[in-house]
């Protein structure tokens, strides 16, 4: 996948980052019962940023990004997405979810619907887009992820990489302003990883605000403008990719990087 990233002309620094705040997390804590999973998370994401989150298993990466679209509830602190604060108010939650797309490790496509129906379902029912319009839009996105010819198949008939690209297209069909990725390539065979990463690089170049939990360090170097390292439910270190990889400050970061880079 490193090669795939290399062939792209992505120049992270040149991609537009505005000073408009997309996500603002302040002093956020979360517990599962007695277990303190997230501890004092503070994070400001500007529009157009591409953030890669990494860290050892169980460090709370998934939990953190799932708090951003309220798949998990936080108990203290605040999360503001697109000027909408996430509270128990269902209206706010629905509004945030319409702005934030999410791609999962295990794709989570709807197996009883065709690829096209997977893509048009939310626009039709949530955004109330007329069916024809929604289908046209879905086809454009399926072309963008390079699988328009699979539109009438069922997810179970596609390869893992194709399924993940459908999942990305499905999220994009809602016209989200922010995309969250939770280890989108870690359930894939090596030869499929690059096709999904290419899609993500393409998306990054279009200026999408992205937060990706991933251990694809090639991708992080090429695309990210910021890398965040988490451990034990805390953000331990964050930096620009170059500095983060070449010159990590924290001992835990060093240990983690040595483990994932030298094997």
């Amino acid at each position, binding site marked *: 996948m490193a090669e795939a990233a290399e062939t792209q002309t992505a120049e992270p620094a040149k991609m537009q980052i505005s000073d408009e705040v997309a996500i603002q997390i302040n002093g956020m804590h979360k517990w599962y019962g007695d277990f303190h999973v997230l501890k004092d998370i503070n994070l400001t994401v500007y529009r157009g940023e591409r953030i890669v989150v990494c860290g050892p298993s169980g460090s709370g990466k998934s939990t953190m990004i799932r708090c951003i*679209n309220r798949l998990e509830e936080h108990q203290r602190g605040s999360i503001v997405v697109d000027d909408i604060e996430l509270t128990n108010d269902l209206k706010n939650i629905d509004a945030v979810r319409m702005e934030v797309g999410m791609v999962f490790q295990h794709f989570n496509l709807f*197996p*009883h619907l065709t690829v096209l129906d997977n893509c048009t379902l939310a626009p039709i029912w949530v955004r109330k887009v007329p069916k024809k319009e929604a289908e046209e839009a879905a086809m454009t996105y399926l072309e963008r992820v390079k699988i328009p010819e699979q539109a009438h198949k069922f*997810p179970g008939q596609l390869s893992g990489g194709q399924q993940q690209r459908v999942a990305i297209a499905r999220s994009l069909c809602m016209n989200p302003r922010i995309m969250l990725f939770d280890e989108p390539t870690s359930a894939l065979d090596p030869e499929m990883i690059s096709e999904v990463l290419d899609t993500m690089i393409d998306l990054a170049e279009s200026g999408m605000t992205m937060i990706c939990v991933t251990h694809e360090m090639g991708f992080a170097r090429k695309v990210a403008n910021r890398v965040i390292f988490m451990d034990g439910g805390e953000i331990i270190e964050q930096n620009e990719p170059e500095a983060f990889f070449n010159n990590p400050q924290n001992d835990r970061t060093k240990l983690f990087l040595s483990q994932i880079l030298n094997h």
Partner: protein
Amino acid sequence: MSDLAYNKTERHEDLPPPASEVGVFGWLRHNFFSTWYNSIGTLVVLYLFYLMVPATLDWVLFSAVWDATSNQDCRFEGAGACWGFIDARLNLFWYGFYDIENYWRPSLVGLMLLVFAVPVLFEKIPAKLVGGVTGVFGLGWAVWAFGGLGQVASLNLPVTIGLLAFIGLITAGVFLRSPRSVCAIAIVGVFPWVSVSLLYGPVNVESLQSGLGIAVYAILFLAGGGFGYWSSKRLDALGAFLGYLVAYFVAVIVFLSWGFGLTIQPTNTFGGLMLTLVLATVAIGVSLPLGIILALGRRADNMPAVQMLCIGFIELVRAVPLITILFMAQFMLPLFLPEGVNFDNVVRALVGVSLFASAYMAEVVRGGLQAIPKGQFEAAESLGLNYFLKMRLIVLPQALKIVIPGIVSTFIGLFKDTSLVSIIGLMDLLLIAKSSVTDSKWLGLEHEAYFFIALVYFVFCFGMSRYSIYLEGKLHTGHKR
């Protein structure tokens, strides 16, 4: 060259399979005589067939007596089944004590159910066919009702016009729009009330007797309809739904009190297969939606009160035998109801059987819900689907598909359990059979009576079972993973 190296250049030709594997003999050999113990098994089964099948066939068909005026006609040496008895009593088996001149009413209900249900149940049945069948049926029926054939006394002109208009409307609807959705809407929204009117007649609605009552209903209707329309203009789906629902129910009540202007056919004359089918259809129609609601309620972790209510209901009803519930509906319900409110016996049985079936259905559906991976819920939520959309579009279609065998088993069990209503004195198919053999003219014909109703039950239950297999096959397309 090393011994390990191997390189095959030409391809092996395709050969026909060995003779022992093809043809009838190959198949027989392979399936019935493949081993010595398989052969013995096959022979034993064949011998049992030899013992049972000829004797049964002889009794049922070859030596059967088809014409009889009393059991004397069937009392001779070597006589088989006395089907003349069933033939003479067929009306009783089908309609119970329903007035003969009103037989067309339940028949019409049955036919209507078929016309509506077929396109909903079978996707492949074409639109024109359903529309054509309805049209031809409606026309034929009109000819029959007015021509020399029927001259049905209970059919007066307004009744006929009302029914014909109804049939015409459905035919037009089926022709003009997608028949499946029209039929589905008709089954849920129209069929139940039309059936009540046809089977029973006009329902006495006290509140519609006075001018004040009529005014209140009119206002409710206009207010509901108006609010619904206003809400739908504002894209407020819930408001529109509630508004139209109020208007709809007012219309239903007014319609029920009109009831096509038919004469009243008391429910204590309902009986036989007709009563069995009424009980089973209503219980099936109520238990599936109610069961789904109960199952969803039971899983609503964020609403403990609702959850407790659902669990309480399900566990309570499941822990009590159906007979007890029927007795309670019969004798104890009046104790809890206010003075003067009185439910019909058949309605009580309907409530009892439906609630009982719902509790079982709820657990079947819950099994399906549990089989849906958490990721499906999360994907739906992350796309912004609210609870109802998530359940309706993503979770239930998958969950119900998984539990089709369980749902149909529940339906089959329920269909047979309706025979328990004989305990509270309703003349269902089984009780009719049981009592008809006590007729002095037809004494000693239990075998025929029970064989016949067993056959009727079998036809319906086996039909449901086959349909479930068809449905599983149809819904299986494409999603293998």
